[in-house]
């Protein structure tokens, strides 16, 4: 099964009308993954036996007309807990970890009857922008196997781009859904902070982390997002706001006429020429469809990266203290006392990037540096959020590039953490403010043929306006229909 040939609604109709059974679909999905994944390496774990059994159960029970994802194969990023199915966060420290409960998002999808085909690769503990920091292997970009898929949800993005699945769950702490979506030519939505429960997500930066979907189409994304959103008594930061039926509003009447779009010069002026050309054409296109497009400024954008890396690393250093070699996960063999259990297990179990961030966080929070680093960054975070508020007083959406470049070559930036961090300059401010934002395929670079993403940022809890604009853009262009040819022939 190559999911470039269909979408969620069509697939559901085929299942209900018995053109295909869930079992046949599941088998075809695994056949496709096995044919591709030696090259792409999107999956850390395949869930074939359980998925096959589940598909049979669903076929036996029958699929009702209102069960949109029943029998539909989807993938899950490997930092999201799945009961009985190994969950590693791509870390050696959790190599053999077998969760005893499902994350709320997985629980909701199970109730909706999805088929979990497997767990996708990521940067260890979701820390990275390229999926090169996985403790196990690097995922390759299906559009050009010598390039990175972006990160940290690189496995999920590559699985969707390779046509393995229609949708895969990702997490976004500083751009980890949107950047890989941009690099792989797929749709990636980070909802408003609090929209989706974080219970059962392996914590990185708790005040930033949010779960969302990578999909091939905007409407599929809206359908799937509604399934996982909503208040959860297990997550005290999850919002009580009602979850709208976003997909129901995406139809022939959806329009961008009169929509007021702000384009921050920081999200446009400093782009590479080839990316800028694609973004300019996308903005001109939205204008031709009746939107108004004005240049604005988000003056503190450049401070987003340093402030984010202080705050997110501080939260990471605190969240990752639980990996102590005692109750679960890796324990160093030759530890002779308690302190050695902690130090040796953590030193041997964590990869380089994770250690770097724990160190940055511990440093920023340590005596004598707290005010100069952590507290200063938290104040800058407030100012960045206020800059967004100010623009949203006069505009419906903020639109610009998702990343300043297209996917880079594997290994090109791995020894230069500072350059790697700067890749996130256009995505982290959104997480600082907790806003919803989506990357949609906007075209291809003339220079290297790689996909370019358009980032659409909305007001808090206004995912609908983002989906509407993304849908209209997608329906009036054909970038999302172009499939990569594995082997680098693009």
């Amino acid at each position, binding site marked *: 099964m190559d999911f470039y040939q269909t979408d969620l609604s069509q697939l559901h109709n085929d299942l209900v009308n018995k053109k295909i059974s869930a079992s046949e679909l599941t088998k075809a999905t695994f056949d496709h993954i096995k044919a591709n994944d030696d090259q792409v390496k999107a999956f850390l774990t395949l869930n074939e036996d359980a998925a096959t059994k589940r598909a049979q159960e669903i076929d036996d029970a029958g699929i009702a007309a209102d069960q949109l994802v029943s029998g539909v194969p989807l993938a899950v990023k490997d930092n999201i807990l799945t009961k009985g199915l190994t969950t590693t966060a791509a870390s050696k420290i959790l190599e053999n970890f077998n969760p005893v409960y499902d994350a709320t998002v997985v629980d909701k999808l199970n109730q909706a009857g999805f088929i979990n085909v497997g767990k996708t690769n990521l940067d260890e503990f979701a820390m990275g922008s390229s999926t090169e920091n996985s403790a196990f292997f690097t995922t390759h970009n299906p559009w050009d196997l010598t390039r990175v898929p972006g990160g940290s949800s690189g496995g999920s993005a590559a699985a969707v781009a390779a046509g393995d699945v229609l949708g895969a769950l990702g997490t976004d702490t500083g751009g980890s859904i949107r950047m890989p979506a941009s690099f792989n030519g797929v749709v990636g939505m980070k909802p408003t902070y609090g929209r989706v429960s974080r219970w059962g997500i392996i914590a990185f930066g708790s005040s930033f982390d949010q779960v969302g979907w990578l999909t091939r189409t905007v409407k599929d994304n809206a359908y799937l997002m509604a399934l996982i959103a909503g208040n959860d008594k297990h997550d005290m930061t999850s919002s009580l706001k009602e979850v709208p039926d976003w997909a129901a509003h995406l139809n022939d009447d959806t329009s961008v006429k009169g929509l007021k779009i702000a384009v921050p010069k920081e999200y446009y002026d400093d782009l590479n020429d080839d990316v800028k050309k694609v973004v300019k054409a996308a903005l001109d296109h939205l204008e031709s469809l009746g939107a108004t497009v004005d240049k604005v400024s988000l003056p503190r954008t450049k401070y987003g990266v*340093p402030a984010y890396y202080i705050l997110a690393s501080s939260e990471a250093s605190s969240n990752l203290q639980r990996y102590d070699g005692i109750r679960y996960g890796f324990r160093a063999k030759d530890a002779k006392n308690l302190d050695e259990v902690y130090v040796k297990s953590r030193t041997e179990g*964590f990869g380089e990037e994770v250690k770097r961030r724990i160190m940055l966080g511990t440093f920023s929070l340590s005596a004598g540096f707290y005010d100069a680093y952590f507290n200063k960054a938290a104040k800058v975070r407030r100012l960045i959020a206020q800059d967004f508020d100010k623009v949203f007083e006069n505009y419906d959406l903020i639109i610009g590039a998702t990343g300043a470049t297209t996917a880079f070559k594997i290994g090109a930036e791995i020894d230069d*953490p500072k350059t790697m961090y700067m890749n996130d300059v256009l995505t982290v401010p959104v997480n600082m403010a907790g806003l919803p934002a989506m990357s949609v395929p906007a075209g291809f670079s003339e220079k290297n043929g790689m996909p370019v993403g358009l980032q659409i940022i909305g007001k808090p809890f206004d995912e609908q306006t983002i989906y509407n604009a993304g849908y209209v853009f997608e329906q009036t262009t054909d970038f999302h229909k172009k499939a990569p040819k594995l082997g680098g022939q693009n």
Partner: protein
Amino acid sequence: MASKITEQQVEHVAELAKLEFPKDELGKFTTQLGSIIDMFEDLTAVDTDGVEPMTSATDRVNVMREDKAVKATKEETEALLKNAPDEDGGYIRVPVIIDESEDGE
């Protein structure tokens, strides 16, 4: 703010974070951290006088749950213990932390 972090500082922070860096890696790691911390210094250019720090973007505050214990089933306990690096008789086993030979000296 100090603009450069020293190897001694890195060793101190590593101790706080329960991590260890071999001597031959310490130099490289110190240089990388120094370069990132230099980037943090950019924030000094932002005027934050009178600005309240922002530590979360949630629209909810002080949500409490009932403090109620839930008894785990035998199967749940067994599944949990399977994830422990070492267990014995339903307990998680750890290396001895008290060296009795030095006791009472």
